[in-house]
């Protein structure tokens, strides 16, 4: 006689199946839950740290010419957005790179993510920078949520050099014409051998390739005597800026200075202008970073920027004497002499990176 011993009821099978499915589901769910709870902030902190290192200790890629000199049409050539002056100067940031990094023409987050955050995960981020003794914070990205990775780096920003030529400098170096002339030429000399060799530390170096060169001249009309004497002041135009160079062939030869190009759209008085450009009593000339390339001047080149000024009276070319002119005195030397140049100075700042 058969009985029911050893059989399973349908209730038991259904219940056990549901239990088993739930158990497998929970078992597979637990590692995922732990990843979510544990690794998120750790991962974000690691990414923030890595981003901070790239920004503060790396000069970026390409390096020479440096990435910040590339315009918006060529931003696709930028591979990595480092802000350091060079790889040998961690924590010393370039002011030109900072300006380019926080410019308004780069789009957040796409233009930055692949060049400074990296990784396959679409991280969001906020990168902010503030110089010491300033309330002006420059920032890209959104405000961070409640949980995010974070790193803060103490940095210094390399300032820009500039030359200030005032009336007393003009008198001291005799940077004015003693002859009656209608055209004056004032020459600025960049001795690459000295600029790159006298100061080997990139943090303090005046690097004509990557740094802005700035010449401010004031009191240009202070000693001008119109010929013949006129009641109305002369008007003066900056007519041309010639770029000239000489390269030493050997130590015993003095090669000729050859003018080979014109600086047609210089930055004068803080704006890009076309020449001729009317000059009042003062002049501020900027040679932007990236303008001088290794094709233009190598490390042994003597480079000259010859500024040509024409003088007019009632629209007619007219003679004068006493205007800015370096023909007799020799060119103005843009070098490390503190009498001529305000040297690059390091300023404190702080950079923060948040990643989520």
């Amino acid at each position: 006689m058969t009985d029911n011993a050893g059989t399973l009821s349908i209730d038991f099978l259904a219940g056990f199946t549901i239990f088993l499915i739930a158990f497998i589901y929970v078992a597979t769910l637990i590692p995922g839950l732990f990843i979510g709870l544990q690794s998120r902030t750790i991962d974000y902190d690691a990414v923030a740290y890595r981003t901070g290192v790239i920004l503060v200790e790396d000069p970026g890629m390409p390096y020479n010419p440096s990435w910040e000199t590339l315009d918006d049409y060529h931003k696709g050539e930028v591979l990595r957005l480092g802000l350091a002056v060079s790889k040998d100067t961690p924590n010393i940031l370039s002011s030109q790179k900072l300006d380019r990094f926080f410019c308004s023409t780069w789009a957040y987050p796409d233009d930055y993510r692949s060049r400074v955050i990296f990784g396959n995960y679409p991280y969001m981020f906020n990168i902010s920078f503030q110089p010491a003794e300033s309330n002006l914070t420059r920032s890209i990205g959104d405000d961070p949520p409640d949980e995010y990775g974070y790193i803060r780096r103490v940095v210094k920003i390399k300032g820009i050099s500039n030359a200030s030529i005032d009336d007393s400098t003009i008198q001291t170096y005799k940077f004015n014409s003693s002859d009656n002339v209608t055209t004056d030429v004032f020459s600025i000399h960049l001795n690459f051998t000295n600029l790159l060799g006298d100061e080997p530390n990139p943090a303090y170096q005046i690097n004509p390739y990557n740094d802005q060169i700035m010449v401010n001249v004031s009191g240009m009309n202070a000693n001008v005597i119109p010929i013949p004497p006129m009641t109305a002041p002369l008007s003066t135009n900056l007519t041309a800026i010639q770029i000239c160079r000489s390269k030493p062939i050997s130590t015993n030869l003095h090669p000729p200075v050859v003018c080979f190009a014109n600086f047609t759209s210089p930055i004068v008085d803080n704006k890009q202008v076309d020449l001729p450009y009317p000059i009042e009593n003062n002049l501020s000339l900027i040679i932007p970073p990236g303008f001088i390339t290794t094709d233009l001047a190598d490390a042994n080149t003597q480079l000259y920027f010859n500024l040509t000024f024409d003088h007019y009276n009632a629209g007619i070319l007219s003679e004068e004497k006493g205007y800015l002119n370096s023909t007799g005195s020799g060119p103005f030397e843009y070098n490390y002499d503190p009498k001529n140049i305000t040297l690059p100075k390091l300023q404190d700042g702080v950079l923060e990176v948040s990643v989520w």
Partner: protein
Amino acid sequence: MVNDRGQLYTIEGIAAALIMLFSAYLVLSATSVYTPGDTHISDMQLEQLGTDALRMMNTPINSSSSASPLQDILYYNGVQGEFNGAGFNTIFLNYVNNETGSKIDNAPNGLHYNATVSYYDIANETTGTLPFYANSNLTGGEHPVRVTEWVIVNKTFPGGGGTDVKPRAVLVEVLLWRD
């Protein structure tokens, strides 16, 4: 004869599954297990901050500066065995507490430190350590990180070198912690 002993009913299986799911959800969402291995994150942030601060203190502001602020602080008019600790305190705290104006509110403020200067005692061929400055004392319960910077100082130190003043390397060591 069939009886109900030892049987698991459908409703009980469903209930058990629901309880397991709910329990797992409750436990994992209510707690974040902070293992000892994770403390390296905050340590790393603090260590980076301290290292940066010392490095920047040991950087002259321009090429015509003969010494960095940290070198000036250690030189202290050449007084043997003493340093400008108050000056160090001002500059160091300024660096480590400096932050941007963005909405980042977990910046590690409330920092404390204890700084010492170690040097090589030439005469006794040992390492000497001098107190530098401390804005708080270590009681043993803190969890400090250690940051260091080698500095060249042109002065004599106790025990060694005599009156022969020449540049020598000393190690500035800072134990840094937060509340």
